[in-house]
């Protein structure tokens, strides 16, 4: 519990801001709370609110969520070796509640102490605390958001752009990632006139290929950056 408190406090403004932005973006109060209850993924929810404000279709929002949350597969892969002894029935719940915050807290604990016999309780206790925090803050944000007029003046559509930018910067841990970002950006600009977001797919693939090539080019296998 004590290890989770800083994350709970850090999540408060984010949860309130999400609730306020989402209702002003045009998501119903009920839908906003439902998103927090069932999706439970802060950055993705935040970006979804920004995209709803831009009148983007459901399919594209779901696709963006997939992309933004792909990092969670890495978290799962990192934690899984420590959870081999955990009964299978707990794993869906752990999967559902795995967030950036939980990962940071739990992986640190496991790295320090190895696989604990009751590791699942440490994981779920921390996650439950964060889940309750997120629900409550969303609710506060919904109420606050409904009382604030003129949502269009907030620069809401720009929120998605800066959130994406912040996430890119946080991922720039090595040169190969930088190369992937640059190549993806250049291809996206060149392919921008293509219809149906084809340019986006091309740019993403080019970025991944550039990253993989860059990884061996810069010999990042030999040097540990993390």
């Amino acid at each position, binding site marked *: 519990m004590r290890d989770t408190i800083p994350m709970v406090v850090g999540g408060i403004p984010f949860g309130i801001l999400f609730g306020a932005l989402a209702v002003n973006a045009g998501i119903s109060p009920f839908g906003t709370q439902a998103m927090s209850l*069932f999706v439970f993924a802060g950055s993705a929810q935040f970006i979804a609110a920004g995209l709803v404000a831009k009148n983007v279709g459901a399919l594209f929002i779901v696709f963006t969520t997939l992309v933004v949350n792909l990092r969670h*597969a890495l978290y799962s892969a990192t934690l899984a070796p420590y959870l081999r002894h955990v009964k299978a029935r707990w794993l869906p719940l752990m999967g559902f509640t795995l967030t950036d915050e939980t990962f940071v807290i739990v992986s640190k604990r496991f790295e320090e102490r190895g696989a604990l016999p009751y590791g699942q309780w440490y994981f779920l206790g921390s996650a439950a605390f964060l889940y309750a925090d997120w629900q409550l803050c969303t609710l506060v944000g919904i109420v606050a958001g409904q009382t604030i007029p003129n949502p269009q003046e907030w620069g809401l559509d720009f929120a998605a*752009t800066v959130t994406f*930018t912040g996430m*890119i910067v946080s*991922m720039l841990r090595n040169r190969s990632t930088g190369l992937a970002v640059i190549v*993806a950006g250049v291809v996206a600009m060149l392919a921008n006139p293509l219809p149906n977001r084809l340019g*986006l797919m091309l740019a993403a*693939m080019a970025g991944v290929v550039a990253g993989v090539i860059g990884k061996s080019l810069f010999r990042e296998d030999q040097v540990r950056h993390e």
Partner: protein
Amino acid sequence: MNEALTIGGMALVTFLIRYPVLAIVGKIDMPKRIFEALRYVAPSVLAALVIPMVLLPNGQPIQRPFDAIPLVSTILAALVMWRSKNLLATVIAGIAAFLILRATLPLFVS
């Protein structure tokens, strides 16, 4: 935008990213190369989304100072993220810069 469809879809993909790996990786060994390539998917897609949004506001190249507001605010947000490593501070700084520039630029440039 269909709200139930959007939220249901988001919930489903998020769960399908988090859970299966947790269940499978403990039992079998996944090819390491796939995970290494996965690392580059998110930054690549995000860059492919953001860079045209910022360099081609409204689908057109930047022509007037007013068009450069998203670019300037985004660069500022990137610097805040790089320095602070705090996503919330970054989002607030970026939106604040965007709103302040949008409100004050007309005072200097006609």
